[in-house]
């Protein structure tokens, strides 16, 4: 019931009534005015812009910054990789991030609703985003489960991955552990209990299932109240990783041999710049690191105050994301250097011990410095015995140790834990490190779940029947049940399938359609006017050129590259753990795994044309109905 005198224009745009709303959006479509009048309940908002920035940072800064960027940096020219990385950030990263944030803030709906507003034929884009987010959340939380597992096991002295377990008659160590290292054994056998191939599925590991359930309970706790709870949680998940990274930076730089790693990794190998793979990797890394196309950024921005300056926030978030990648790679390379030096020195000591024992030389006569001369002398003095010994004498090389480039779960869980076990007070560093991994993972999970939940809570049909808590609980429960697949013995192989194929191709297509939709279907000029109304500043020519030309062209070239790469490779292969040899071997995917891969890619990409088709059919039917009535 409206009392007289209540209608008065207030500063800012929210205070206006129906007439003002229509005046505001007169330049835009009538659809948007109607949708604004539809708002019966106010949309939940972030308490302050800082929460929004923290949420975006927490989402964008994830495990990829820690375990993928250092690998790329090492493979594609060390310090020289920063050149294509920064160029791609400017050309692709910032514009696309700003685009998504602006769309979300302007439309004030999740991905499905937002793209429906832009054009009814584009509802498929939103659905595709939700499908991809759903796939991602299914497998991504397993990483958090692993982080929990390692975190819980860090409260022991000595750390369980520091030594091999004993075999049954206690005369030596377990055979599999002898062939490989204790950290690899802990990861492959005691954590994953991995089967030799994808076909042998094995049983669900109850320990991993428990950790996965816990991970999903944590996620549910954080999203239970929507932005009210998420907004508080992201303060922790965004800032704690930086504290840990700083501690690790100080610790890492003071480790023995860290400098070796830093020098080796960061010396620019500029000849890599001529390799097209370098540029493609830089573009891909920027693209996926920012988490574009999942709908999470649209979801986060939709909870914004509409006059929020998302342009500034887009620049801040993308810069912080890239700086964190570089920062994390400094830490990683110093850890690499420490680990490589440690292994190199152990190798040298083993050789020295072997020579001393065989030739009964005095202790201390053989050192690392005089090793090569002594070897020549011994070869001359006792040629027969030396020749017998030769197969056991390994050539220890620091470069070979540094060259082992690892990415992904291997880096995070094997290499880092190997370095940690050799530090003093290893329990403390272990706890800090896995807590950091957990924060990074949960931060990204919050964004993924927001991408799924926001369209669901936007739809009236669902919210009228179920409360927000029930919907969130249902989504978490379904994901948890499906996620149990990844806790089986062959689960890590399925994880790799999802990790490599669920999101890559689909996201490129989604973002391409998004950019073209905003620039050409909605109209760049119209969007520019909307942004001017929202933020109060004119759009820079830089954004316009990037959106209209540079970014779409870049995405198209990435898309073509990926397609040709898939086609040229022929059969897809994966790395399986062979326990008899104690190392990874390459195998071919069975046919049903290939079918699953095809299904993953198709189910998200096909949403876009299907959505357009369905809308077209619906409009046709409505028109026919109207014409028959008339």
């Amino acid at each position, binding site marked *: 019931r409206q009392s007289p005198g209540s209608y008065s224009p207030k500063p800012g745009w929210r205070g206006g009534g129906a007439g003002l709303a229509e005046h505001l959006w007169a330049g835009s479509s009538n659809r948007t005015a109607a949708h604004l009048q539809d708002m019966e*309940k106010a949309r939940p908002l972030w308490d302050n812009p800082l929460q929004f920035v923290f949420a975006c940072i927490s989402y964008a800064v994830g495990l990829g910054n820690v375990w993928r960027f250092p690998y790329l940096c090492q493979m594609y020219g060390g310090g020289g990789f920063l050149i294509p990385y920064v160029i791609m950030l400017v050309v692709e990263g910032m514009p696309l991030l700003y685009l998504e944030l602006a769309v979300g803030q302007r439309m004030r709906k999740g991905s499905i609703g937002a793209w429906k507003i832009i054009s009814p034929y584009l509802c498929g884009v939103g659905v595709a985003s939700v499908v991809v987010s759903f796939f991602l959340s299914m497998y991504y939380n397993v990483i958090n489960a692993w982080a929990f597992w390692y975190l819980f096991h860090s409260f022991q002295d000595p750390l369980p991955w520091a030594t091999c377990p004993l075999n049954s008659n206690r005369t*030596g160590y377990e055979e599999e552990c002898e062939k490989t290292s204790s950290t690899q054994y802990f990861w492959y056998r005691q954590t994953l209990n991995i089967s030799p191939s994808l076909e042998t599925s094995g049983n669900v590991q109850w320990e991993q299932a*428990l950790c996965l359930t816990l991970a999903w309970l944590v996620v549910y706790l954080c999203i239970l109240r929507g932005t009210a709870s998420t907004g508080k949680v992201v303060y922790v998940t965004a800032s704690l990783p930086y504290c840990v990274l700083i501690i690790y930076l100080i610790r890492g730089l003071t480790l023995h041999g860290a400098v070796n790693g830093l020098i080796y990794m960061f010396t620019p190998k500029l000849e890599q710049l001529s390799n097209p793979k370098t540029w493609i990797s830089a573009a891909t890394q920027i693209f996926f690191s920012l988490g574009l196309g999942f709908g999470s950024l649209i979801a986060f921005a939709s909870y914004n105050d509409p*006059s929020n300056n998302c342009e500034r926030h887009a620049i801040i978030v993308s810069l912080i994301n890239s700086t964190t990648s570089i920062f994390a790679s400094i830490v990683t390379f110093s850890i690499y250097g420490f680990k490589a030096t440690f292994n190199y020195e152990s190798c040298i000591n083993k050789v020295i011990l072997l020579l001393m024992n065989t030739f009964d*030389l005095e*202790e*201390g006569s053989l050192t690392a410095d005089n090793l090569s001369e002594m070897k020549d002398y011994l070869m001359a003095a006792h040629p027969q015995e030396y020749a017998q010994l030769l197969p056991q004498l390994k050539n220890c090389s620091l470069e070979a140790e540094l060259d082992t480039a690892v990415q992904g779960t291997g880096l995070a869980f094997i290499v880092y834990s190997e370095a940690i076990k050799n530090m003093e007070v290893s329990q403390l560093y272990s706890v800090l490190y896995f807590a950091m991994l957990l924060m990074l993972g949960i931060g990204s999970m919050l964004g993924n779940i927001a991408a799924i939940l926001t369209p669901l809570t936007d739809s009236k049909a669902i919210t009228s029947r179920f409360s927000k808590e029930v919907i969130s609980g249902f989504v978490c429960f379904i994901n948890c049940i499906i996620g149990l697949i990844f806790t089986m013995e062959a689960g890590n192989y399925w994880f790799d399938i999802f990790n490599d194929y669920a999101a890559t191709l689909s996201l490129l297509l989604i973002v391409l359609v998004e950019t073209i939709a905003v620039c050409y279907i909605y109209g760049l000029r119209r969007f520019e006017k909307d942004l001017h109304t929202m933020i109060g500043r004119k759009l820079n020519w830089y954004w316009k050129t990037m959106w209209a030309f540079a970014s779409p062209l870049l995405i198209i070239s990435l898309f073509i590259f990926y397609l040709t790469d898939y086609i040229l490779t022929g059969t897809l292969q994966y790395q399986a753990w062979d326990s008899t040899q104690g190392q990874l071997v390459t195998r071919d995917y069975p046919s049903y795994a290939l079918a699953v891969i095809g299904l993953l890619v198709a189910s998200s990409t096909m949403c876009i044309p299907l959505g357009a088709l369905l809308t077209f059919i619906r409009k046709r039917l409505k028109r026919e109905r109207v014409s028959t009535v008339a």
Partner: protein
Amino acid sequence: MLGVLLLAFSVVSVASAELCKPDAQNAFKVRLSIKTALGDNAYAWDANEEYLFKAMMAFAMRRYSSKSTTQISNVLLCNVTDRVSFWFVVTDSSKNTTTVPGSEVEAAIRMNRNRINSAFLLSDKTLQFLKISTTLSPPVEPSTPVWLIVFGVVLSLIVAGIVFLVVSGIRKHKKKNKESTERENLEEKGEVTITIENGIPCETLDLKAGHVNGVFAADDERFTSL
């Protein structure tokens, strides 16, 4: 007389040389890594240390077989190198020409390994009897694995948090329902005026201090004052 003595001595030394040599029957190789174990506090290996070793072996044999007949002179050392490594045998105390079977010596050493190690301030790794493999001590395992305890603690905290949030959400929902029915009753009586704009009650809108959007600042003049 002298000749007989010389002959006897040479026979004995030849015999002992035959008994103790590398890879002889029932002989064991010992390897010590004193500098690795003790660093700067390392002692030098000399005749006194050898005497101690012989004494420890005799002690081990006595303890094992509980026959107090093994003498220090029954333990023979040979081929001492700079490493420090050497071979030794234990001869039978009753007959000086045969050696005690290797299995007995091994069992005696296994039984007294700790005492032998501590006599030289060394460990299993730095005082090695090459043919005698060490049994590794199993790691201490608590009855409930530590990780389960930590897991239980974290799980109970999280579940408590969820229950608290859900319950408080339900309570707030009930209170809001009660309030809205009360308000409807009051409205019907015409007692409460609520400012409503565009169908949205003003209280639900977050009226925090916003910032002025430059586009609108000029627009205030357009509207005629009420």
